[in-house]
């Protein structure tokens, strides 16, 4: 589904990703772990198409398409979803309006019929229940006045509603208490299907206790330096990143 080869990315003239390679197949969950400043969030942002991230070398193909040539909204319509590390508050843009505009824009771009209000609200209510989010959230501005936990749950709610092919969760566990973490993990697990893949970016193993990954990768200094099963996350938790190889794996 996703194939990243030798990806080099600069931000403000500084190279952050230095030859990253990663392959993710449909139905898989890949965890990316690594120390601060390793380039984890850069990876999420560059896959979603954020401005300011300059790809100087390498390729990213998604379902056979060159992802890097697509605009952010085209990537979303193609099925790429980024759950933001810091979801932005947008006062004045009503959450319901935003969600419907997003869903229908994606459907339109894919040549699917747009949902009317009734169909849309039915779908919204089903997904809200899974994340235990109140209906009142729909009437507020996007993320406006949400607590940290609500913002993260709202990201997962949006993911559930938009049903992407590839979801990238950028430190979705940061700032969550244990109950909120469980809810977020339950929301993610409910979305796991043989067709959908996840890249879960995290600092800590505790999220992986709830979302069991197929593969764990260590990202250090802009490259994947180690890959393995869930036991790698356990080892990291026990030994820290200092004990990991510093060079990229072949």
């Amino acid at each position, binding site marked *: 589904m996703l194939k990243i080869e030798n990806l080099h990315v600069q931000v403000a003239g500084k190279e952050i990703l230095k030859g990253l390679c990663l392959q993710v197949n449909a139905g898989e969950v890949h965890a990316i772990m690594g120390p601060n400043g390793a380039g984890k969030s850069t990876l999420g942002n560059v896959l979603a198409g954020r401005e300011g991230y300059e790809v100087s070398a390498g390729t990213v193909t998604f379902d056979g398409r060159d992802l890097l040539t697509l605009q952010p909204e085209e990537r*979303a319509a193609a099925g790429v979803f980024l759950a933001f590390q810091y979801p932005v508050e*947008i*006062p004045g*843009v009503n959450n319901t309006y935003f969600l419907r505009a997003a869903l229908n824009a994606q459907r339109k771009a894919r040549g699917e019929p747009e949902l009317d209000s009734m169909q849309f609200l039915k779908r919204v209510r089903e997904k809200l229940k899974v994340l235990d989010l109140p209906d009142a959230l729909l009437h507020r501005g996007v993320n406006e006045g949400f607590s940290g936990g609500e913002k993260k749950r709202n990201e997962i709610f949006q993911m559930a509603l938009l049903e992407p092919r590839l979801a990238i969760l950028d430190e979705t566990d940061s700032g969550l208490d244990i109950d909120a973490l469980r809810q977020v993990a339950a929301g993610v697990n409910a979305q796991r299907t043989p067709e959908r893949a996840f890249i879960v970016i995290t600092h800590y193993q505790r999220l992986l206790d709830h979302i069991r990954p197929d593969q764990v990768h260590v990202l250090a200094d802009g490259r994947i330096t180690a890959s393995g099963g869930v036991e790698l996350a356990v080892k990291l938790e026990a030994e820290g990143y200092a004990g990991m190889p510093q060079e990229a794996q072949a």
Partner: protein
Amino acid sequence: MSTALLAAALQHTGVPDLPGTGIAEVDAARAAARALLARRPTLTDAHAEAWRYTSLRALEAQNLLLALPPAAHITPDLPPASGLRLVFIDGHYAPHASLTRNLPAGVTLKPLVDVSAAEWRTHAALLRLPLADADALAALNLAFASAGVLFAVPAGVVIETPIEMVYLGATNIPGAWHARSCIVLGEAARATVIERSIGAGAGLATLYADVALAANARLDLVQLQEAGAALSLLRSSVIDLHARATLRLHAIDLGAALTHHALSVRLLGAHAQVELRHVVALDRRQHADLQLDLLHAVGDTRCDVRCRAVAGGRARAVLQGAIRIAEGADGSDAALDTHNLLLSDQAEIDTRPVMEIYADEVRAAHGASVGQLDATMLFYLRARGIPMAEARALLTAAHCRAVLDDIADVNVRAAALQALDARIQSLR
């Protein structure tokens, strides 16, 4: 069109009968205004601070005669009225398009053409030049106003349905029309007024409004301007509030080639308060200039002013927001914030909040910003699949809606937001 030229042209062509013609006080006031007009070489004093950002030179070069009454068969395509409505087409009252039935006893709501001699005398504001040293523009309005409304509500009367005043342009033939209105709310009276400028239009229109709110009165006033793209709309409003009176004014400027609004609000009695919201959305070469002069004449008065401008193309938006707190007006509470968005490299927004404080114990705050759409918000919307143009429109509308969401009447609010959204969708 120098004013001397205008006066000569009018002498040559003759002036159509104006409302109140034949009433001594009206004739005398108009004669004085025309005499003043004839003495002035230009419509405005280009050196005056209020005209620092707006030039009428191009307008003055045109020979703009008064617009003729429209053909009687014009039936304007207006949205359904949510209450009572007076319609003026090219500056002339259109009774067939208006609705003035079932007013509470004692309430006066009539176009200038129906104002009686006694009412002209009672409501002297209808014949007042707004400034002691009146400029030619004010004189032009007084001398030739054919449109406008007298709306007077006696003490204690509450009017639930909105009163709508519609100024409709039916022709793109350059011309000139002038309107002056007088709104008087007696003690504890309440009303909602929506003033709409819509349709086609080219040339010059002037609108003068004199508003007086007695003690404990409350006026919700919405000025929704979607005038024709070639019209220059010059507006002057004087609003006086007495003790414990409340004004909520939402002014929304979306249309016209050029607008200039000299808005004077005077808080004359303790606990009088004004909430002023101004939204302007422009593109191409549109120009909008709001000159606010807000006076706390006495203490324990409150104002809350919030302005939002967005400008694309080569448009220019100007806000000169002066709040003056007079000596001895202790306990005044004044707030002014103006936040503005530039949507193109060639647009310009000039914003100058000014506070002049002569009292000792006051609360006064102001903030101003001019910037661009937030890149993080834009990316967030696009990352969810919303195309760039739609994402920009959503954020631009949100920026403006923030100060329109508190329009009290639900139908008026919906109309204002609908007009705003339509304008923002079309901004280039």
